[in-house]
């Protein structure tokens, strides 16, 4: 199956230093939180950006989802801080 695209926004993007990256598709049964933990374990900017999940929000294929959502066959995961529009 195709790789998963991850897109980052706001200070998550700045700390990681990337707008987006491709990762190997996680095991079936993996949640967003599982993948976030795996990415944070890389250390450096990833750890800085993704270490505190209380401050993280996510969207799968452009829909907001809780972090315990299964990634399934989604094509795009977005990780970002709570939104501040309006």
């Amino acid at each position, binding site marked *: 199956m195709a790789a998963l695209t991850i*897109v980052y*926004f*706001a200070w998550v993007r700045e700390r990681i230093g990337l707008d987006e990256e491709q990762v190997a598709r996680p095991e079936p049964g993996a949640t967003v939180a599982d993948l976030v933990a795996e990415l944070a374990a890389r250390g450096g900017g990833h750890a800085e950006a993704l270490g505190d999940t209380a401050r993280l929000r996510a969207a799968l294929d*452009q829909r907001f989802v809780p972090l315990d959502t299964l990634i399934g066959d989604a094509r*795009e995961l*977005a990780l*970002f801080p709570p939104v*501040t*529009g*309006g």
Partner: protein
Amino acid sequence: MKRVAVQAGDFDVAAELAALEALGGGGVASFTGVVRGGGGLIALELEHYPAMTQAQVDRICDEAMARWPLLGLSVIHRFGRLEPGARIVFVGTASRHRTAALESCAFLIDWLKSEAPFWKKEHFADGATGWVEALAEDEVKAKGWNSDD
């Protein structure tokens, strides 16, 4: 009438309101958000998630149209670098019932605050920058709309 725009440029509030008034509804409510100055702020930079923004704002508008008997609505949200005094967001609603127009306008701006994928970065005169933190209050306000009616 449902008009949704996510754009870098400014917008013409008078034209939006005129289009809503022309629906013959009786009442037109609006809210315009403007960049506040002060504290040495020189600009606000609005980042968004282009692949998601338009569709998400569209969903929020559909939700408002399902909840209130609206004749029309218009939502415009800007992104990019905005200086103090610049307009950021516009919400306009038209209804035969003034309460529907006013409530749906409040609903839309509350939801945009907590459900639209925008992030604000502040730039100060001394070169400092900082991301605006989401207010817990705003998430609570948007959730509040789930419990009434």
